[in-house]
Protein backbone atom coordinates (compact mmCIF):
# COMPACT_ATOMS: atom_id res chain seq x y z
CA UNK A 1 0.00 0.00 0.00
CA UNK A 2 1.85 3.06 -1.26
CA UNK A 3 -0.62 5.79 -0.48
CA UNK A 4 -1.21 6.84 3.10
CA UNK A 5 -4.72 6.49 4.41
CA UNK A 6 -5.83 9.69 6.07
CA UNK A 7 -8.14 9.72 9.07
CA UNK A 8 -11.21 10.68 7.03
CA UNK A 9 -10.68 7.91 4.50
CA UNK A 10 -10.23 5.42 7.32
CA UNK A 11 -13.49 6.60 8.88
CA UNK A 12 -15.23 6.25 5.52
CA UNK A 13 -13.90 2.72 5.00
CA UNK A 14 -14.96 1.58 8.47
CA UNK A 15 -18.43 3.09 7.99
CA UNK A 16 -18.74 1.37 4.61
CA UNK A 17 -17.69 -1.99 6.09
CA UNK A 18 -20.15 -1.73 8.97
CA UNK A 19 -22.89 -0.55 6.60
CA UNK A 20 -22.70 -3.81 4.67
CA UNK A 21 -24.49 -5.60 7.51
CA UNK A 22 -27.97 -4.27 8.28
CA UNK A 23 -27.77 -5.54 11.85
CA UNK A 24 -24.21 -4.35 12.39
CA UNK A 25 -21.03 -6.34 13.00
CA UNK A 26 -18.47 -6.85 15.72
CA UNK A 27 -14.91 -5.58 16.13
CA UNK A 28 -12.99 -8.64 15.05
CA UNK A 29 -15.02 -9.08 11.86
CA UNK A 30 -14.77 -5.34 11.04
CA UNK A 31 -10.99 -5.55 11.37
CA UNK A 32 -10.76 -8.62 9.14
CA UNK A 33 -12.95 -6.99 6.46
CA UNK A 34 -11.01 -3.72 6.51
CA UNK A 35 -7.72 -5.61 6.27
CA UNK A 36 -8.95 -7.20 3.06
CA UNK A 37 -8.97 -3.73 1.58
CA UNK A 38 -6.15 -1.98 3.38
CA UNK A 39 -2.99 -2.93 5.13
CA UNK A 40 -3.67 -1.43 8.50
CA UNK A 41 -2.46 -2.60 11.84
CA UNK A 42 -5.13 -4.22 13.93
CA UNK A 43 -4.52 -1.68 16.66
CA UNK A 44 -5.35 1.20 14.29
CA UNK A 45 -9.01 0.33 14.15
CA UNK A 46 -10.07 0.52 17.78
CA UNK A 47 -9.51 4.31 18.02
CA UNK A 48 -11.44 4.77 14.76
CA UNK A 49 -14.40 2.76 16.05
CA UNK A 50 -14.31 4.66 19.30
CA UNK A 51 -14.19 8.04 17.58
CA UNK A 52 -17.09 7.15 15.27
CA UNK A 53 -19.02 6.05 18.33
CA UNK A 54 -18.33 9.29 20.17
CA UNK A 55 -19.35 11.25 17.07
CA UNK A 56 -22.61 9.29 17.09
CA UNK A 57 -22.02 7.79 13.68
CA UNK A 58 -21.97 4.32 15.19
CA UNK A 59 -24.03 2.82 17.97
CA UNK A 60 -23.18 -0.27 19.97
CA UNK A 61 -25.18 -3.10 21.40
CA UNK A 62 -24.11 -6.28 23.16
CA UNK A 63 -25.25 -9.76 22.33
CA UNK A 64 -24.67 -13.07 24.08
CA UNK A 65 -22.88 -15.45 21.78
CA UNK A 66 -21.63 -18.90 22.75
CA UNK A 67 -21.59 -17.93 26.42
CA UNK A 68 -19.59 -14.74 25.84
CA UNK A 69 -20.53 -11.17 25.32
CA UNK A 70 -20.05 -9.76 21.83
CA UNK A 71 -20.20 -6.05 21.14
CA UNK A 72 -21.84 -5.10 17.83
CA UNK A 73 -21.39 -1.81 15.99
CA UNK A 74 -24.14 -0.43 13.80
CA UNK A 75 -24.54 2.69 11.66
CA UNK A 76 -26.74 5.47 13.02
CA UNK A 77 -28.71 7.81 10.78
CA UNK A 78 -25.96 10.34 11.20
CA UNK A 79 -23.45 7.66 10.23
CA UNK A 80 -25.42 6.84 7.08
CA UNK A 81 -25.53 10.51 6.11
CA UNK A 82 -21.80 10.83 6.78
CA UNK A 83 -21.08 7.79 4.62
CA UNK A 84 -23.14 9.21 1.74
CA UNK A 85 -21.10 12.41 2.01
CA UNK A 86 -17.83 10.49 2.00
CA UNK A 87 -18.90 8.55 -1.08
CA UNK A 88 -19.64 11.75 -3.00
CA UNK A 89 -16.35 13.34 -1.91
CA UNK A 90 -14.50 10.20 -2.96
CA UNK A 91 -16.10 10.20 -6.38
CA UNK A 92 -15.01 13.79 -6.99
CA UNK A 93 -11.53 13.21 -5.68
CA UNK A 94 -10.94 9.96 -7.54
CA UNK A 95 -12.23 11.28 -10.87
CA UNK A 96 -9.96 14.32 -10.70
CA UNK A 97 -6.91 12.16 -10.08
CA UNK A 98 -8.00 9.80 -12.82
CA UNK A 99 -8.21 12.67 -15.29
CA UNK A 100 -4.81 13.90 -14.23
CA UNK A 101 -3.20 10.48 -14.65
CA UNK A 102 -4.95 9.58 -17.86
CA UNK A 103 -4.59 12.93 -19.62
CA UNK A 104 -7.43 15.16 -20.80
CA UNK A 105 -8.29 18.50 -19.23
CA UNK A 106 -8.06 19.11 -15.53
CA UNK A 107 -11.02 21.32 -14.40
Amino acid sequence: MIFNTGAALLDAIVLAVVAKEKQGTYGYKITQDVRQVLEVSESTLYPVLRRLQKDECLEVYDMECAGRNRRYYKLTEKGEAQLRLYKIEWKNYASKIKMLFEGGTVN
Partner: protein
Amino acid sequence: MNRQEFMNRLEYLLRSIPEEERADALAYYNDYFDEAGIENEYQVIQELGSPEQVAQTILSNVQQESFNRIRQDYCSPEEGSKNTEKEHTYEYTTTNENWNAHTVVEEKKKMSTPIKVLLIIVIILTFPLWIGVVGGLFGVLVGILGALFGIIVGFGGAAIGLVAGGVACILVSITQIAVVPAVALASIGVGALLVAVGLLLALLVTLTVGVWIPKLVKVIISWVKRITHREEGGNEI
Protein backbone atom coordinates in the same frame (compact mmCIF):
# COMPACT_ATOMS: atom_id res chain seq x y z
CA MET B 1 4.74 -12.93 25.49
CA ASN B 2 1.33 -14.53 25.83
CA ARG B 3 -2.15 -13.01 25.82
CA GLN B 4 -2.37 -12.57 29.56
CA GLU B 5 1.00 -10.83 29.76
CA PHE B 6 0.02 -8.66 26.80
CA MET B 7 -3.27 -7.58 28.38
CA ASN B 8 -1.69 -7.00 31.79
CA ARG B 9 0.99 -4.81 30.27
CA LEU B 10 -1.66 -2.93 28.25
CA GLU B 11 -3.74 -2.34 31.36
CA TYR B 12 -0.72 -0.94 33.13
CA LEU B 13 0.12 1.38 30.21
CA LEU B 14 -3.42 2.73 30.15
CA ARG B 15 -3.53 3.55 33.84
CA SER B 16 -3.53 7.29 33.21
CA ILE B 17 -6.76 7.43 31.20
CA PRO B 18 -10.27 7.51 32.75
CA GLU B 19 -11.50 4.19 34.06
CA GLU B 20 -14.40 3.90 31.62
CA GLU B 21 -12.15 4.45 28.60
CA ARG B 22 -9.65 1.94 29.89
CA ALA B 23 -12.34 -0.66 30.57
CA ASP B 24 -13.79 -0.22 27.07
CA ALA B 25 -10.39 -0.59 25.42
CA LEU B 26 -9.45 -3.68 27.44
CA ALA B 27 -12.86 -5.26 26.79
CA TYR B 28 -12.42 -4.63 23.08
CA TYR B 29 -9.05 -6.36 22.91
CA ASN B 30 -10.10 -9.19 25.19
CA ASP B 31 -13.08 -9.83 22.90
CA TYR B 32 -10.70 -9.64 19.96
CA PHE B 33 -8.49 -12.35 21.39
CA ASP B 34 -11.55 -14.47 22.20
CA GLU B 35 -12.87 -14.15 18.65
CA ALA B 36 -9.51 -15.03 17.12
CA GLY B 37 -9.42 -18.17 19.23
CA ILE B 38 -6.61 -19.67 21.27
CA GLU B 39 -4.98 -21.16 18.18
CA ASN B 40 -4.48 -17.68 16.72
CA GLU B 41 -3.29 -16.06 19.94
CA TYR B 42 0.32 -15.78 18.85
CA GLN B 43 -0.60 -14.42 15.43
CA VAL B 44 -2.84 -11.76 16.94
CA ILE B 45 -0.03 -10.61 19.22
CA GLN B 46 2.28 -10.40 16.20
CA GLU B 47 -0.20 -8.31 14.27
CA LEU B 48 -1.13 -6.03 17.15
CA GLY B 49 2.50 -5.13 17.68
CA SER B 50 3.66 -4.41 21.17
CA PRO B 51 1.40 -3.39 24.06
CA GLU B 52 3.31 -0.11 23.94
CA GLN B 53 2.17 0.53 20.36
CA VAL B 54 -1.45 -0.32 21.12
CA ALA B 55 -1.42 1.87 24.21
CA GLN B 56 0.18 4.71 22.26
CA THR B 57 -2.61 4.85 19.64
CA ILE B 58 -5.24 4.82 22.37
CA LEU B 59 -3.51 7.46 24.47
CA SER B 60 -2.90 9.86 21.58
CA ASN B 61 -6.54 9.52 20.53
CA VAL B 62 -7.82 10.30 24.01
CA GLN B 63 -5.54 13.35 24.28
CA GLN B 64 -6.52 14.51 20.80
CA GLU B 65 -10.20 14.30 21.65
CA SER B 66 -10.07 16.41 24.79
CA PHE B 67 -7.87 18.90 22.96
CA ASN B 68 -10.34 19.15 20.07
CA ARG B 69 -13.23 19.55 22.46
CA ILE B 70 -11.57 22.52 24.13
CA ARG B 71 -10.65 24.05 20.80
CA GLN B 72 -14.15 23.57 19.38
CA ASP B 73 -15.54 25.76 22.08
CA TYR B 74 -13.18 28.67 21.63
CA CYS B 75 -11.56 28.73 18.20
CA SER B 76 -12.95 29.08 14.72
CA PRO B 77 -12.30 26.18 12.37
CA GLU B 78 -10.34 28.38 9.99
CA GLU B 79 -7.35 28.27 12.28
CA GLY B 80 -6.91 24.93 10.68
CA SER B 81 -5.27 23.21 13.60
CA LYS B 82 -7.89 20.50 13.71
CA ASN B 83 -6.48 19.26 10.44
CA THR B 84 -2.95 19.60 11.69
CA GLU B 85 -3.83 17.35 14.61
CA LYS B 86 -4.86 14.63 12.22
CA GLU B 87 -1.78 15.30 10.13
CA HIS B 88 0.27 14.61 13.18
CA THR B 89 -1.21 11.23 13.90
CA TYR B 90 -2.04 9.94 10.45
CA GLU B 91 0.23 11.69 7.92
CA TYR B 92 -2.71 13.33 6.32
CA THR B 93 -3.09 14.73 2.82
CA THR B 94 -3.76 18.34 3.67
CA THR B 95 -5.08 19.90 0.46
CA ASN B 96 -8.52 18.35 0.33
CA GLU B 97 -9.21 18.71 4.06
CA ASN B 98 -8.24 22.39 4.11
CA TRP B 99 -10.36 23.08 1.06
CA ASN B 100 -13.34 21.37 2.61
CA ALA B 101 -13.12 23.24 5.89
CA HIS B 102 -12.90 26.52 3.98
CA THR B 103 -16.04 26.13 1.91
CA VAL B 104 -18.11 25.09 4.91
CA VAL B 105 -17.14 28.22 6.85
CA GLU B 106 -17.78 30.52 3.87
CA GLU B 107 -21.24 29.10 3.23
CA LYS B 108 -22.24 29.68 6.83
CA LYS B 109 -21.16 33.34 6.66
CA LYS B 110 -23.11 33.98 3.42
CA MET B 111 -26.38 32.83 4.89
CA SER B 112 -26.64 34.43 8.32
CA THR B 113 -25.50 38.08 8.12
CA PRO B 114 -28.50 39.84 6.49
CA ILE B 115 -30.91 37.68 8.50
CA LYS B 116 -28.99 38.43 11.69
CA VAL B 117 -29.22 42.20 11.14
CA LEU B 118 -32.95 42.00 10.44
CA LEU B 119 -33.45 39.91 13.58
CA ILE B 120 -31.65 42.46 15.74
CA ILE B 121 -33.77 45.32 14.37
CA VAL B 122 -37.00 43.42 15.05
CA ILE B 123 -35.90 42.65 18.60
CA ILE B 124 -35.09 46.29 19.34
CA LEU B 125 -38.38 47.56 17.91
CA THR B 126 -40.56 45.12 19.85
CA PHE B 127 -38.73 45.71 23.15
CA PRO B 128 -41.77 46.93 25.17
CA LEU B 129 -43.75 43.88 24.08
CA TRP B 130 -41.38 41.16 25.21
CA ILE B 131 -39.81 42.80 28.25
CA GLY B 132 -43.09 42.30 30.15
CA VAL B 133 -43.26 38.62 29.25
CA VAL B 134 -39.62 38.07 30.11
CA GLY B 135 -40.08 39.83 33.45
CA GLY B 136 -43.13 37.72 34.22
CA LEU B 137 -41.34 34.48 33.37
CA PHE B 138 -38.44 35.50 35.55
CA GLY B 139 -40.85 36.18 38.41
CA VAL B 140 -42.40 32.75 38.01
CA LEU B 141 -38.96 31.15 38.07
CA VAL B 142 -38.02 32.96 41.28
CA GLY B 143 -41.33 31.94 42.79
CA ILE B 144 -40.81 28.29 41.96
CA LEU B 145 -37.26 28.30 43.31
CA GLY B 146 -38.47 30.02 46.49
CA ALA B 147 -41.21 27.45 46.98
CA LEU B 148 -38.72 24.60 46.49
CA PHE B 149 -36.39 26.15 49.01
CA GLY B 150 -39.23 26.62 51.49
CA ILE B 151 -40.36 23.03 51.10
CA ILE B 152 -36.87 21.68 51.64
CA VAL B 153 -36.29 23.82 54.75
CA GLY B 154 -39.76 22.92 56.05
CA PHE B 155 -39.25 19.21 55.59
CA GLY B 156 -35.79 19.44 57.07
CA GLY B 157 -37.14 21.21 60.14
CA ALA B 158 -39.95 18.67 60.47
CA ALA B 159 -37.42 15.85 60.27
CA ILE B 160 -35.35 17.33 63.07
CA GLY B 161 -38.45 17.96 65.18
CA LEU B 162 -39.72 14.42 64.71
CA VAL B 163 -36.42 12.80 65.60
CA ALA B 164 -35.90 15.03 68.63
CA GLY B 165 -39.47 14.56 69.82
CA GLY B 166 -39.27 10.83 69.27
CA VAL B 167 -36.05 10.49 71.24
CA ALA B 168 -37.43 12.61 74.08
CA CYS B 169 -40.56 10.49 74.15
CA ILE B 170 -38.52 7.31 74.39
CA LEU B 171 -36.32 8.67 77.16
CA VAL B 172 -39.22 9.90 79.30
CA SER B 173 -41.12 6.67 78.77
CA ILE B 174 -38.16 4.63 79.97
CA THR B 175 -38.16 6.51 83.26
CA GLN B 176 -41.86 5.77 83.65
CA ILE B 177 -41.58 2.01 83.05
CA ALA B 178 -41.56 1.19 86.76
CA VAL B 179 -44.61 3.35 87.44
CA VAL B 180 -46.98 2.62 84.54
CA PRO B 181 -45.38 -0.26 82.54
CA ALA B 182 -48.04 -0.76 79.85
CA VAL B 183 -48.40 2.91 79.02
CA ALA B 184 -44.64 3.42 79.11
CA LEU B 185 -44.07 0.57 76.65
CA ALA B 186 -46.67 1.98 74.31
CA SER B 187 -45.03 5.41 74.48
CA ILE B 188 -41.65 3.92 73.69
CA GLY B 189 -43.25 2.44 70.57
CA VAL B 190 -44.72 5.78 69.57
CA GLY B 191 -41.37 7.47 70.18
CA ALA B 192 -39.62 4.94 67.97
CA LEU B 193 -42.17 5.54 65.22
CA LEU B 194 -41.59 9.28 65.41
CA VAL B 195 -37.84 8.77 65.12
CA ALA B 196 -38.32 6.46 62.12
CA VAL B 197 -40.53 8.93 60.24
CA GLY B 198 -38.17 11.74 61.12
CA LEU B 199 -35.17 9.83 59.79
CA LEU B 200 -37.07 8.99 56.60
CA LEU B 201 -37.84 12.66 56.02
CA ALA B 202 -34.23 13.55 56.72
CA LEU B 203 -33.15 10.97 54.14
CA LEU B 204 -35.58 12.41 51.57
CA VAL B 205 -34.29 15.93 52.12
CA THR B 206 -30.65 14.83 51.91
CA LEU B 207 -31.33 12.90 48.71
CA THR B 208 -33.09 15.84 47.12
CA VAL B 209 -30.39 18.33 47.96
CA GLY B 210 -27.40 16.04 47.50
CA VAL B 211 -28.37 13.94 44.52
CA TRP B 212 -31.45 15.01 42.60
CA ILE B 213 -30.80 18.73 42.39
CA PRO B 214 -27.17 18.36 41.15
CA LYS B 215 -28.43 15.84 38.60
CA LEU B 216 -31.11 18.26 37.41
CA VAL B 217 -28.54 21.02 37.10
CA LYS B 218 -26.28 18.70 35.05
CA VAL B 219 -29.17 17.77 32.73
CA ILE B 220 -30.05 21.43 32.14
CA ILE B 221 -26.40 22.25 31.44
CA SER B 222 -26.12 19.40 28.94
CA TRP B 223 -29.27 20.63 27.13
CA VAL B 224 -27.79 24.11 26.85
CA LYS B 225 -24.52 22.62 25.61
CA ARG B 226 -26.33 20.54 23.01
CA ILE B 227 -28.18 23.55 21.67
CA THR B 228 -25.05 25.67 21.40
CA HIS B 229 -23.09 22.68 20.08
CA ARG B 230 -25.50 21.97 17.25
CA GLU B 231 -24.70 25.33 15.70
CA GLU B 232 -21.01 24.48 15.70
CA GLY B 233 -21.50 20.83 14.83
CA GLY B 234 -22.21 21.79 11.24
CA ASN B 235 -18.53 22.57 10.68
CA GLU B 236 -17.46 18.98 11.05
CA ILE B 237 -17.30 17.15 7.80
